[in-house]
């Protein structure tokens, strides 16, 4: 349970940093991080001692060969005025097995 909380706190910190995009945001992000310094420290130490976030990276550490690759891509539209530098919902590096 505490491991999940620790991961959540660190993930929230990552979100804060990610959201601090422009000039004014940088200052606000840093203030928020300083205000969260205690929980962040506790979460970091929890993960360092208990290692509840660690697992075997089967997706990258297992030998595999890819052959006969076929690509079939179609342009379907255009999006403008997007605020994020990354596509929303991008999951190509997300692993489903924990």
């Amino acid at each position, binding site marked *: *349970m505490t491991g999940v909380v620790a991961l959540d706190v660190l993930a929230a910190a990552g979100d804060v940093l990610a959201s601090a*995009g*422009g*000039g004014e945001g940088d*200052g606000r992000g*840093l*203030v928020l991080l*300083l*205000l*969260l*310094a*205690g*929980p962040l*420290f506790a979460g970091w*130490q*929890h993960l*360092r*001692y*208990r*290692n*509840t976030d*660690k*697992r*075997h990276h*089967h*997706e990258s*550490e*297992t*030998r*595999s*060969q*890819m*052959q*006969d*690759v*076929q*690509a079939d*891509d*179609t*342009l*379907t*539209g*255009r*999006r*403008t005025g*997007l*605020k*994020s*530098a*990354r*596509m*929303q919902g*991008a*999951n*190509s*590096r*997300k*692993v*489903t*097995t924990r």
Partner: protein
Amino acid sequence: MSDVHAPQAGAEGTPDPGTGATPAPGFPGVEPPDGPRVVSTEGDRGDGIVRCERCGASDASLNVATGMLRCNFCRHEWRTENALASFDLDGAIGDLRGVVVGSGTAAVTADPAVTLKCTACGAEVVIEAGVQARCHWCRNTLSLTEQVPNGAVPDMVLPFSVTKADAVTRVAEFVGKRKFFAHRQFKAEFSPENVLGVYLPYMVVDVNTRARLTGEGEHQTRSYTVQVRNAKGETHSERRYDADVYDVRRTFDLHVDDLTVESSTERLDRDTSRTSNNVINTILPFDVENSVRYDPRYLQGFTSERRDVDVDGLRGAVHQQVRDIARWRADETIGFYDRGVRWDTTDLDVQGERWVSAYLPVWLYSYLQTRKDGSTLLHYVAVNGRTGETMGSVPLNWPRLLAVSAVVEAVGAVAAAVLWVLS
């Protein structure tokens, strides 16, 4: 959303390794394909006394320094042949069709305890745990070599190559870096020389599949700055992006080699609130291609855990891991989509798969923590018995950690206030 088409029936088939299997926790069962081809890995040895080829003594064990078996009477050393090569279980994965299994993967149906008749004096000796016992009359060492379907005898074994002294050093170093916030009782009782060599049960799987992924990708076409006015009427600059959107499809053959999964119910439970099995999972992978034919004498001086999950119980988990590998490999082909790709489906059309059961070597230091509410948590520090990779779980001294965190929070709050005033 994903789909799996299981491979069709193999060419030959006798025992069904899937009957009576239980799905691994968290994974749906997948329909077992009919009639796997079973490769016998049992050899011609019977249960009972396995003798040294030079002097005939029954007592031999692994010499970790050389990786060879050594007779404990005449000191003669010999090497056992490579398992995958000698049983022709290392053929090209692209040629795999149907399901091929080692005979050591047979469904676990028998009672764990096995009674052996001593071939020297005729006494009956019960082996309740492990695969070896001494005859209580004539003191010969008896070995369980035949593959009784109780999960105790696998197809192959990977001998330890990391010595106990090395494992003790690695455990001590790992814990030594985590002492300040460690639980007081753990620190007081920490004794790394109590590390234990354990052969844990795994399934090693090769998969030949066609993978098909579909989704949507974005390619950035423009990046620019706009002036934005907030509720107070103040303006500030923000970044904006334009992107082309594509339907993305990738289809390719994927040959997965030596995917290794735990095959005991206890080790598959990786809920970190009640176990620290995840640290044992972390020390994968092993160089399983160097495994040798199973010989119980490799286990002498170590302990072993029995397999209690069958091929069918693990198939869902294995296919899920193959999907993850497919996505990972597909990432190499989507460089054009610099804003990312969202995969919506990952389908597998499995052409063939090959399953081999194995004992793999792990040095384990364990500590049972009893918490204030009476519940217990078993912490492990695990060392890969081949590569030396080390990972562990050290119980925390929460009062100390919270006190230090409170000080850090106070300093952070003061710094935040100063920064706020200055800005």
